[in-house]
C-alpha cells in the first residue's frame, strides 16, 4: 500500500488503482502522514526551502474544522461529466434527426404547393416550428460538442422555414 502511494505521488500508479488507494489514505492516519512527509521531502529536494512554520498544517486543520462543510451540487461534480460525455452523441443524433425532419418538411412544402386548407395548416405548423427551432437551437448552442450549434446552421434552417 505504501509503495503504491509512493507511485501515486509520482504519477506512476495505474488509473484503475487510484480510487481505492485514495480511499485507503483517507481512512489511514499513517498513510496521511506519509503523504504529508513525502511531499515535504519532495519539495525540499527540489531546493524549495520551506517558508511556513512546520506546524502550518496543524493550525490550518483546526481552522478548517470550524468551517461549515461545503457540499457542491452533484451537477458540479466530476462524475457528472462522465454522464454528459455519454449523452453527447445521443444529443447530436437527436439534433440531426430533428433538423432533417424540419428540412424535409420545408422541402415538401416548397415543391408540393398544398391545397388551401393544408396550406393554412402547414403555415401554422411552420409558425410553431420557427419558434421551436429557434429555442431548440439556442438551447443547444451551449453544448460545445454539438455540430449544429453553429449559427450558420441556425440561419439556414430559419430562412428555409420562412421561404415557404
Amino acid at each position: 500500500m505504501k509503495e503504491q502511494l509512493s507511485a501515486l505521488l509520482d504519477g506512476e500508479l495505474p488509473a484503475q488503482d487510484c480510487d481505492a488507494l485514495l480511499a485507503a489514505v483517507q481512512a489511514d492516519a499513517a498513510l496521511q502522514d506519509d503523504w504529508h512527509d513525502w511531499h515535504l521531502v519532495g519539495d525540499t529536494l527540489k531546493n524549495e526551502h520551506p517558508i511556513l512554520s512546520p506546524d502550518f498544517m496543524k493550525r490550518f486543520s483546526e481552522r478548517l474544522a470550524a468551517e461549515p462543510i461545503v457540499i457542491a451540487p452533484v451537477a458540479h461534480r466530476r462524475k457528472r461529466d462522465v454522464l454528459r460525455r455519454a449523452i453527447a452523441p445521443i444529443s447530436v443524433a437527436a439534433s440531426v434527426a430533428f433538423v432533417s425532419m424540419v428540412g424535409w418538411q420545408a422541402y415538401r412544402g416548397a415543391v408540393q404547393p398544398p391545397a388551401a386548407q393544408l396550406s393554412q395548416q402547414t403555415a401554422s405548423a411552420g409558425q410553431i416550428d420557427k419558434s421551436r427551432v429557434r429555442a431548440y437551437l439556442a438551447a443547444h448552442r451551449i453544448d460545445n460538442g454539438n455540430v449544429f450549434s453553429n449559427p450558420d446552421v441556425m440561419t439556414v434552417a430559419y430562412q428555409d422555414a420562412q421561404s415557404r
Partner: protein
Amino acid sequence: MEKATERDIDAELVARAQAGDKRAFELLVSKYQRRIARLLTRLIRDPHEIEDVTQEAFIKAYRALPSFRGESAFYTWLYRIAINTAKNYLASLGRRPQLSADYEDEEGETLDAAAQIPDHSTPESELSNRQIVSTVNEAVDALPEELRTAITLREMDGLSYEDIAEAMNCPIGTVRSRIFRAREAIAGKLKPLLDSVSKDRRW
C-alpha cells in the same frame, strides 16, 4: 496501462472534498502549501503575513469549492485565489504589491528560495525549517547509492520511472521500489523532528 496523472489525482480529491470530505481537501493543502506560500513571497514580505494569507487563501478556496468545475487544473484555480487573497489583503491595508521585481529574474522566475529565506521566515520556524532541510540532505547522502540515484532522478530531475529504469539499467518495478525505500528512509529520519515540532499529530 493508463496512469493516474497529477491532475487526475487532484480532481479525484476535489470531487471527494466537494462531496463533503474535509480530509480530502487537507491532503490538497498539505501538498500545495509550500508552493502557495512561495508564490505569495512575490507580493508580501513579512513571514507572519505570508503565513496568514496562505491560510486565508486555502480557506477561501475551500469555501469556493462548489464553484470549481475542473475546467482548469486545481493548482491553476488555487493560484488565482491565492493571488487575489493577497491583493485584497494588501488593499485592505492600503498597500500595493511591491516586491515582484526583487524576486524575479529576467525570465520572470522567482530566484532560488535560499536567497529569500532570511526575509520570509520567522526566526522560530526558520530554525525548524533549516533543521528539516539539513536532515533531508543528510538522509539523502546516507542512502545506498542506487536509492539515492533513483530518488534524485525522480525528485530533482523529474524523470519518469521508465526513464529512470533506462538510466539505471533495471526494471521499472525496481525503480518503483527504490524510490519508495528512499522516501521511507528520508522520512524516517525526519519523523522525530516533525513530531517534536507538531507535538502529537501532523494535522
